[in-house]
């Protein structure tokens, strides 16, 4: 393939009437100077003969400069750039991790504060409930005492009333008996009988027992 290229190139040399430059290494005679198609001022004033990529005379030059470039680039990148970027990235990683940890800490603190607040709230609520319960108990006690006192008073009054009623009844009984005896004695006397005190009393007792009771 390359021999064909060289053949083509030599043909081109034979046809060209422009400046011919022969490579002094004499490996091949590829000419890359302009012939009939030179366009001055168009920038690329050299016309390609064949495919420039297959021009073997320039390979050594390209490979040499490529290797120089690659070695320089590799040394600079591996000595300077990569450690620096790696350091920056790990710094950033560290900073981000630190910030995240700080944020986590703040979050924990906030959570603790919230828990303390909740606890205080619950405490206050229980305390309030305790006070309410205590008050209620006190009031209940006072109420109970008042009710008991009232009950006792009522009972006392009732007893007093009953006693008085009983006294009244007893006195009424006695008065009735006296009245009845007097009436009986008077009746007996008016009928002409001799009113015996004892007989009247026993007769009255027998009649009154059934009546009053």
């Amino acid at each position, binding site marked *: 393939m390359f021999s064909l290229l060289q053949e083509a190139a030599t043909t081109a040399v034979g046809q060209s009437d422009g400046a011919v430059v022969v490579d002094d290494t004499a490996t091949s005679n590829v000419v890359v100077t302009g012939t009939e198609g030179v366009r001055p001022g168009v920038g*690329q004033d050299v016309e390609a003969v064949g495919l420039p990529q297959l021009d073997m005379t320039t390979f050594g030059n390209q490979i040499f400069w490529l290797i120089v470039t690659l070695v320089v680039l590799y040394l600079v990148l591996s000595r300077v750039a990569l450690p620096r970027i790696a350091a920056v990235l790990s710094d950033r990683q560290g900073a981000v991790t630190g910030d995240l940890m700080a944020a986590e800490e703040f979050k924990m603190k906030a959570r603790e504060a919230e828990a303390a607040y909740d606890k205080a709230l619950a405490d206050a609520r229980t305390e309030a409930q305790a006070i309410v319960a205590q008050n209620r108990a006190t009031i209940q006690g006072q109420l109970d005492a008042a009710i008991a006192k009232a009950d006792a008073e009522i009972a006392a009054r009732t007893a007093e009333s009953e006693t008085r009623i009983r006294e009244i009844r007893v006195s009424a009984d006695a008065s009735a008996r006296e009245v009845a005896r007097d009436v009986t004695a008077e009746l007996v006397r008016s009928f002409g009988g001799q009113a015996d005190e004892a007989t009247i009393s026993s007769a009255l007792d027998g009649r009154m027992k059934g009546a009053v009771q």
Partner: protein
Amino acid sequence: MATEATGGGLEFHPMDQFVVRPLFGDGAVAWYTPTNVTLWLALTALAAIALLVMGTRGRAIVPNRAQSVAEMAYGLVYKMIEDIAGKDGLRYFPYVLTLFMFVVFANLLGLVPMAFTVTSHIAVTGVLALAVFFGVTIIGFVKNGAHFLDLFWVRSAPLAVRPILAVIEVISYFVRPLSLSIRLAGNMIAGHAVIKVFAGFAAIAAVAPIAIVAVIGMYAFEVLVAFVQAYVFTILTCVYLKDALHPSH
């Protein structure tokens, strides 16, 4: 040939942009002569260094624009090696990053008008591909010894098929540098030549608007291709590195 004028002012010179010529004077191109290749290689290296060294000069925790681009390139290649070749491939990270930065900047600088595209030359991409090929082969033999040959002897296949597969594997192994270099150079040659051909059509007034729009479209496409080819070159390097580090299928 296509470089001949077809008359009427319509001239196509799609290959002129690839000519290697001395920077100073019209001499022969000896191996040490500073040529346009030298110039653009140097600019490529300087651009890569400018991005990765000057761009990260601030060492900022919150990066500026250049630094985040540099870190993005670093992260892209780092993740690529880690995902494909595994953790033990990270030893070769500086070399792979050098290749990536070189190829991507050479491709992009080649798109600057009047520039010379170093990656369009078989000699350049061939050296890159052969460096990958020999490097990977040497790493494979040093790391695995004779077990590296397991790469060609597919144990998961039936015994009868293995010799055939071995032949195919050997061929595909040796085609690697060829395909790697020709893919990159071919893409670059094709894109730039097509742009030049469209630009040539701009000489005819009737089709000039279409030609100019086509040049713009192709240019945008070539920017994409420049990135994708650098990415593909690097990713294939990682795949080959994985084969060298873990040769068993």
